[in-house]
């Protein structure tokens, strides 16, 4: 007997909303990537809770794949940020206006 399922989903929803705010509000590409990580973390919490609710291991298997995709995504995103920083000297997305003449 732990807690009602709704409380775990409420926690996951709160964390997801925080990640959403971080993703939208920040003007720093690294903080944007961190927001995506927070959202994936919230999704993982919801999956583990659902896995326990129905006593099936599919949810946990899915969390493992979320972990893998998240690792690939963050490493590729950081490589893109470094490449953009080398080209433009900034990690502010508002400054990427080379194509705007």
């Amino acid at each position: 007997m732990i807690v009602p399922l709704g409380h775990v989903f409420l926690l996951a929803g709160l964390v997801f909303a925080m990640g959403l705010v971080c993703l939208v509000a920040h003007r720093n590409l690294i903080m944007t990537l961190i927001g995506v990580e927070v959202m994936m973390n919230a999704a993982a919490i919801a999956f583990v809770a659902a896995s326990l609710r129905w006593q099936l291991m599919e949810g946990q298997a899915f969390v493992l794949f979320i972990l893998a995709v998240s690792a690939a995504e963050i490493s590729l995103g950081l490589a893109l940020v470094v490449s953009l920083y080398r080209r433009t000297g900034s990690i502010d997305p508002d400054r990427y206006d080379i194509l705007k003449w």
Partner: protein
Amino acid sequence: MTLSAVIFYLLGIVILTATGLAVTRQQPVHAVLYLIVAFLGTAALFFLLGAPLLAAFVVIIYAGAIMVVVLFVIMLLQRSPHDLRLLSEWGPAVLLGVIFLAVAVSMVFKDDGSGIVLQGAVAQPRDFGRFLFDKYWLAVEIVSILFLVALVAIIHLGKRRETDADEDDVNPVRNPNGASHPTAEQRSIISNGVKEGHS
């Protein structure tokens, strides 16, 4: 209220506080450090919810590997992000988050199943691994291909661009005035112009 419930609510407070502090920091380094706390709390929560293997993976991969990579990249970009102020659009962002949260909470609690109390159960790592490689071996292979693709892309992106400059220098005849794509000098001029134009 059982002991498990007390632990759950404590962990929930830790996760929410750490995540809330992380997403409002101006310095990415502080955000990453708070996020490590949040991930450790998530790992403990996974352990509580009967997923010990996933708890270990979250500590190793999220809190260990990914956050260290992010820290390294922050150190790589020497420019301290002072000029990267927070967007003045906290209002719309928070409004968006609150609307999303209201919809999600109403959907969760409208369902009768949300009141079901979770029964404790543990997926032993041995059983979990057997299950994974028994039923989802194809997905595991696909994930390995995904990692290969990501690795190739990162190596390509991370390579220095000296090869392009050499090409331009060696073959001036084929590319007489650099019209098709900018040479290294032009590129540096462009980027300098961008930098100066805004500072």
